[in-house]
C-alpha cells in the first residue's frame, strides 16, 4: 500500500461504491417506475394512472388479490402457529425433521407447488388414477378457483408465520413461564395467559409477512387462476404485457404502483408489530420450554405428520407419479412406468438444457457478484451513522420487498432503450434478468454478512490495527476469514432463490433466454404436464440438496442465517 492512500481515502472509496450500488441497483428501478406511473397526470382522464384507476378490471384484480392473499394468510396462520407452538414448546420427538419438512414448501418454487397439486387432484391425476380414485372425466379441477389459489398460497407462506412466531417463542425467557407455573398455572393456562399474549406481536408480524408474500406470488395464481380466467394483480400485469407488449408499459407501471403501495403498507405494518414485540425481556432465553405432552404425544405427533403428509408428501408423490407415466391420464403400473420424460428432458429437449444452463449461469453469477459486493458493503455500512445506515438498508431492501412483477416492470422501463453513452441494449437479453436478480437478491446476501459483522468483537480489528494492518489488510486477513461461513451461506441462499425464480423472469424472458422457472410454466401451459413434472422433480431434488448443505453449514453461522434453523 502506498503511503498516500490513507485510511480516509479508503473509506471514501468504499463509500462511493456503496452509494453507486445502492442508487443504481436499488433506487433507480423504483424511481423510474414512479416517474412513469405518475407521468402525464396533467392530461387528466387520459393519464395512465387515471385510466388504470377507472378500469373495472383493476378493481376486480385488486379484490381477487386481497381475497386470495387474505384467505391464504388465515390458512398460513393456522398451520404456522400450530407447528410453531408444538415444535417449540413441547417435548415432541424428531423436531429437526419436522421443521425441515415444514420449511420445504417455502423453498420449493411456487409453480412447482402448483403443478404438484394439480397432479394430485382432478380427473387426469395419474396418482388418483393409479389408485382408482380419480373423479369421472369432465369433472372440474377443484384447484382452478380462488379458494384453490388461497390454499396453496397459505401452504407456501405458512413457514413465514412459523418462523416469526418461533423467533418470539425462542426469545421468550424461561423464567416467565416458570414463574407462572409456580404461581399455580396449569400448562394450558400458561399457554393462554402468558405465552400467547407475550408472543402475539410475533404472530401478527408473521401474518403480515404471509400476506405480503402471497400478494406478490405469481406462480400459483398464474398456474391455477389463468386457466379459470381468475386474475390477480400480478397475473393481470403479466397477461396484459403478454398480449400488448411494451405499448401498455405506462399503464402497467401505474398498476405496479398500486400493488407496490399495498405491499409496502404491509411491510410497514409488519415492522411496526415486530418492534412492538420487543418487550426488552430479561432472563435466560434460547432454551426450549418443554411442555410435557404425556399421553397426548402419539396423537399430536400423528396430527403433525398427517398435516405434513397432506401438504408436502402427497403433492410431491403425485408429482413423481406424473413424471413416470407415458402421458397424462395413464395410470401408473409396472407396465406403464417409464423414464421417458427424464430422457426427453435431459437428452433431447434443447430448450430444457438451455433453460438449465441459463438458470445456473444467472443464479451462480448473481451469487458470486453479490458475495463480492456484500463484504465491503456490509463492512462500510456498519460504520455509517445509525440513521443513514437504516435509510441505506431500507433502500437495499426495497427491490426484495416489492412484488417481483413490480421490479420486472421497473427494469423493463429502465432498460427498454439502449443504455446511454455505451449504447448497449439490455432489453431482450439475459443481461436484463441478471441485473434484475442483482437488485432483487442483494439484501438476501447482505443480511447474513451484516449479522455476522455485527457479532464480531470490534477489538479483534482494533488489535490488528494496532499491529499495523491497513483497512484492506484487516478486511482480508481478519474480517473475511471470520465471516466466511456467513458470506458463503448468503451466496447459497441467493443461488437457491434465483435458480427457481419465476416472477421476474416471466416478464423479462425472451426466446432463447428461458429460465428454469419459465420452462416449467411454459411446458405446463403447452399441455406437457409430464415433462413439466419431470423437470419439477429434478428441481425439488436440487432444492432439498441445497437446503441440506445449508443445514450442515448452520453450526458455523450466526443465529437466523439459515431460515429453517432457529
Amino acid at each position, binding site marked *: 500500500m502506498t503511503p498516500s492512500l490513507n485510511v480516509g481515502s479508503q473509506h471514501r472509496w468504499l463509500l462511493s461504491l456503496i452509494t453507486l450500488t445502492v442508487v443504481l441497483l436499488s433506487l433507480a428501478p423504483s424511481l423510474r417506475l414512479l416517474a412513469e406511473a405518475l407521468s402525464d397526470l396533467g392530461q387528466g382522464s387520459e393519464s395512465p394512472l387515471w385510466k388504470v384507476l377507472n378500469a373495472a378490471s383493476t378493481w376486480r384484480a385488486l379484490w381477487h388479490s386481497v381475497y386470495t392473499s387474505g384467505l391464504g394468510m388465515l390458512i398460513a396462520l393456522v398451520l404456522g402457529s400450530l407447528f410453531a407452538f408444538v415444535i417449540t414448546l413441547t417435548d415432541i420427538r424428531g423436531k429437526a425433521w419436522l421443521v425441515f419438512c415444514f420449511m420445504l414448501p417455502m423453498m420449493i418454487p411456487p409453480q412447482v407447488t402448483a403443478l404438484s397439486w394439480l397432479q394430485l387432484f382432478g380427473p387426469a391425476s395419474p396418482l388418483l388414477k393409479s389408485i382408482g380414485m380419480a373423479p369421472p372425466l369432465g369433472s372440474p379441477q377443484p384447484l382452478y378457483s380462488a379458494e384453490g389459489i388461497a390454499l396453496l398460497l397459505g401452504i407456501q407462506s405458512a413457514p413465514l408465520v412459523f418462523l416469526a412466531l418461533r423467533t418470539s417463542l425462542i426469545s421468550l*425467557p424461561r423464567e416467565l413461564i416458570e414463574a407462572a407455573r409456580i404461581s399455580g398455572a396449569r400448562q394450558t393456562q400458561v399457554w393462554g395467559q402468558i405465552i400467547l399474549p407475550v408472543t402475539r406481536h410475533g404472530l401478527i408480524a408473521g401474518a403480515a409477512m404471509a400476506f405480503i408474500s402471497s400478494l406478490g406470488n405469481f406462480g400459483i395464481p398464474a398456474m391455477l387462476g389463468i386457466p379459470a380466467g381468475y386474475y390477480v394483480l400480478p397475473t393481470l400485469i403479466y397477461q396484459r404485457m403478454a398480449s400488448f407488449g411494451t405499448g401498455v408499459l405506462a399503464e402497467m407501471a401505474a398498476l405496479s404502483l398500486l400493488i407496490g403501495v399495498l405491499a409496502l403498507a404491509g411491510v410497514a405494518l409488519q415492522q411496526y408489530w415486530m418492534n412492538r414485540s420487543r418487550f426488552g425481556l430479561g432472563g435466560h432465553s434460547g432454551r426450549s420450554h418443554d411442555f410435557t405432552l404425556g399421553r397426548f404425544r402419539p396423537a399430536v405427533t400423528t396430527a403433525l405428520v398427517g398435516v405434513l403428509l397432506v401438504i408436502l408428501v402427497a403433492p410431491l408423490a403425485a408429482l413423481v407419479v406424473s413424471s413416470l407415466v407415458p402421458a397424462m391420464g395413464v395410470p401408473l403400473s409396472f407396465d406403464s412406468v417409464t423414464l421417458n420424460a427424464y430422457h426427453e428432458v435431459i437428452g433431447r429437449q434443447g430448450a430444457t438444457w438451455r433453460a438449465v444452463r441459463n438458470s445456473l449461469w444467472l443464479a451462480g453469477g448473481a451469487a458470486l457478484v453479490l458475495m463480492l459486493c456484500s463484504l465491503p458493503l456490509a463492512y462500510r455500512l456498519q460504520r455509517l451513522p445509525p440513521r443513514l445506515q437504516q435509510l441505506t438498508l431500507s433502500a437495499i431492501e426495497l427491490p426484495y420487498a416489492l412484488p417481483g412483477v413490480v421490479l420486472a416492470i421497473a427494469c423493463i422501463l429502465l432498460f427498454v432503450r439502449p443504455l446511454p453513452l455505451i449504447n448497449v441494449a439490455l432489453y431482450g437479453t439475459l443481461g436484463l434478468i441478471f441485473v434484475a436478480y442483482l437488485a432483487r437478491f442483494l439484501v438476501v446476501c447482505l443480511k447474513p454478512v451484516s449479522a455476522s459483522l455485527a457479532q464480531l468483537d470490534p477489538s479483534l480489528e482494533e488489535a490488528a490495527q494496532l499491529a499495523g494492518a491497513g483497512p484492506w489488510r484487516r478486511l482480508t486477513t481478519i474480517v473475511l476469514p471470520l465471516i466466511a461461513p456467513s458470506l458463503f451461506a448468503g451466496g447459497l441462499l441467493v443461488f437457491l432463490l434465483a435458480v427457481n425464480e419465476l416472477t421476474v423472469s416471466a416478464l423479462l424472458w425472451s426466446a432463447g433466454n428461458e429460465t428454469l422457472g419459465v420452462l416449467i410454466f411454459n411446458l405446463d401451459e403447452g399441455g406437457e404436464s409430464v415433462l413439466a413434472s419431470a423437470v419439477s422433480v429434478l428441481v425439488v431434488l436440487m432444492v432439498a440438496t441445497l437446503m441440506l448443505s445449508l443445514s450442515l453449514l448452520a453450526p458455523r453461522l450466526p443465529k437466523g442465517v439459515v431460515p429453517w434453523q432457529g
Partner: protein
Amino acid sequence: MAGLAIQQVTKQFGDHRAVNDLSLEIAPGEFVALLGPSGCGKTTMLRMLAGFENVTGGEIRLNDTLLASRHHHLPPEQRNMAMVFQSYALWPHMNVADNVGYPLKLRRIQGSEYQRRVAHALAQVALEPYAQRSPQELSGGQRQRVALARCLVTDPAVVLLDEPLANLDRNLRASMEHSFVDFHRRTRATMVYVTHDQSEAMAMADRIAVMRDGELVQWATPEALYRQPRSEWVASFIGQGSQLAIANGAPGQRLTESALMQGLAAAHNSRAQAARQPVLVRPEHIRVDAQAPNEHDLTGRVERLTFRGERYELHLRLPSGEALLAYHHCALEEDQQVALRLLEGWCLEPDQ
C-alpha cells in the same frame, strides 16, 4: 409452616452428575441458604425443589407429602411454592398489580378479596403508587420488590429465591437483604435462598448448606460455619483466614495458643511431610507486635499491606515460607520483621 425433607437426592444430566446424594432437613419457618461457587449444583437443587427438574434418585417431601422421587413428580403448579428469580420474571404484558394478582386469579379469588390482598402485598413492599405501571417502567430494585409481593400474595408453603440480588448494584443489595429478612420475620415462611455470595448467605440465613461439585460439604449455622469450618476448602471459601501446617491436633479440634505455637514449631523443626495437620487461623486471632522481636518469638516479615479504612491488612511471610493474614491498627514498613502471637486455631479436614 412447612418443613422440607431432602433425602439422598441425585440429579444426573447425561453423564454429568449435577447433584449427588444430597440430604437436608429444613425445619418449618427456617431461612436456609444454599451456598457454593457457580456450577456446584445449588441452582439445580432449587429447581428440583420447585419441580422444574425431575430427580434422578432420592426423595423430596414437604411435611408428609411426597413431592418428588424417581417414580413420582408433582408438577410445580401443585406444590404451593413461590419463587423469586434472578431476572425478576415479571410478565411484560401485565401491569404491576396484575402481576402480583395473577396467582390469586389462578386460585379463583375475585372481587374485593382480590383487591384487598393485592393492595396488602403491594403495601408490604411499599409499591402501592406503582400498581398501574408496567414492569418495564420500574428500576431493578422495584422490579424485585414486585416479584417479592407476588410471592407474598398467596401465603405459599415455601419461598424459593434464585440469586435474587445478582442483578442489583451494591447499595441496593444491602436494602434488599433487609427486605428479605423483614419478609421472613413477618411471614415465617420456609425460605430457600440460592447464592454464591457468602456475605449474603451469612447475613440472612438461619442455616447454610455449603455445596461443592454437587455434594453437601457442610450444613451449619453461619456462626458454626465461620468458627468451625469442616475442611480446608470450606475454610478458604468462608471468611478470611490463613491455613498453616502443624504437627499435632486432629480435624474438628480447637487449639489454644500454646498448643498451636508448639505444633507450629514442631512442624517447622521436623520438616517431616507425613503428619501434617492443616489449621485455620483467623486474622482477628493474631496479635502483631511491631517492636523488634527477640529470638523466642514467632516472627513474620511484612510483605505487603493494604489500607482498609478501619484497619490495615498485613500480608505476612513466616520463616517456614507460609503466608499469614493479620490485622493491625497502624501502618508498618514493608520488609519489617514483627513478633506474632497466634491466640487460637481450628483444625481442618485435609482436602483430597
